[in-house]
């Protein structure tokens, strides 16, 4: 009976993946992690999304790379040991985002303390592990999609010129 209760407790404890970004460790809900892969060639092409570095090719799929260490530690990772492939639900679309990490990742099952009003928006909660208090990351804040940002145009630019009017040069010329 005691054994059965313990097993149930273990099964219901949420799982997290601990990842290292430079000097600090963070956690991500295990349900948001698809895979941990070795770094591969990064393909870069012109774009205007500063949070995205390029894409990697993984089993025929092109996955955007987002170095979240840049925003969490205010500096890019000096060494990249793996790419953590996280799943992101952008509306109805399930996408993947590759997050460079600088060390081994670890799967832990523990309870999370919910974040408070004073915590940064990217903090989903806190967990205690190995004598350390670790931030659980809210990936929707660090790798935002259309729902988390202002609406972006998805149709032809010829049909929607409004965002371009934000360009001061164009605005001035039009006025």
């Amino acid at each position, binding site marked *: 009976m005691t054994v059965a209760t313990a097993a149930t407790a273990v099964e219901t404890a949420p799982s997290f993946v601990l990842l290292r970004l430079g000097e600090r460790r963070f956690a991500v809900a295990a349900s948001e992690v698809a895979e941990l892969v070795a770094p591969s060639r990064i*393909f870069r*092409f*012109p*774009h*205007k*999304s500063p*949070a*995205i570095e390029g*894409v990697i*090719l993984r089993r*025929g*799929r*092109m*996955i*955007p790379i*987002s170095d979240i260490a840049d925003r969490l530690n205010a500096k890019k990772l000096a060494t990249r040991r793996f790419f953590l492939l996280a799943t*992101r639900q*952008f*509306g109805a*679309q399930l*996408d*993947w*985002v590759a997050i460079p990490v600088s060390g081994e990742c670890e799967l832990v099952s523990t309870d999370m303390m919910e974040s408070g009003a004073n915590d940064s928006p990217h903090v989903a909660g806190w967990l205690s592990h190995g004598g350390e208090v670790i931030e659980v990351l809210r990936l929707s804040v660090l*790798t*935002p*999609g*259309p729902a988390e*940002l202002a609406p*972006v*145009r*998805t149709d*032809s*630019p*010829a*049909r*929607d*010129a409004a965002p*371009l*009017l934000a360009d001061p*040069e*164009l605005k001035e*010329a*039009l006025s």
Partner: protein
Amino acid sequence: MQAAAVTRAPHPRTEQIILFRVSGQTFAISSASVQEVRSVDNIAGMAQDLPDSTIRKVRHSIRRGDRTLYIVNAALHFGLQPQPAALVFFLRRTRTALLVDGIEKMATMSRLQALSLAFQGEERSWYRGLTALDQTVIPVVQPEGFLSLAELTLLEAAQLAADTRAIAAQTSGAQSQ
């Protein structure tokens, strides 16, 4: 004896694409979107200056039949370091003539992956998506994405000013003779 029915795997939908270079970067465009490819030297005499253009990437226009096409510098459009362009793509069903550095090759694209929604900027109108060819990722451009409606409006005003100036010059030339 009956011959066994031949079952063929359905052909995946493929598309012919042109791989072209702009400032060292490779892009792809559907060959069906390109009406004509000309050398820059070939069109030099036909292009008209647009000194009043406020769109940095467009400095010239060209008449094709009864239409005016705007010559877009692809390097400036994508925010790349401009290099001397060698070719012009006249894009079908658009008012864009695109200056590019050169053609790499023709290829067949069997899969086009939509741009991830993690991409939030202007690239969403620049590209139809990404394709992988020979283990390389290549962005596939959207022909309609080179000039927006607002840009076309500004260019039409610049074109009108250039035309008015040309007519005035012709008139004063005729009067002086």
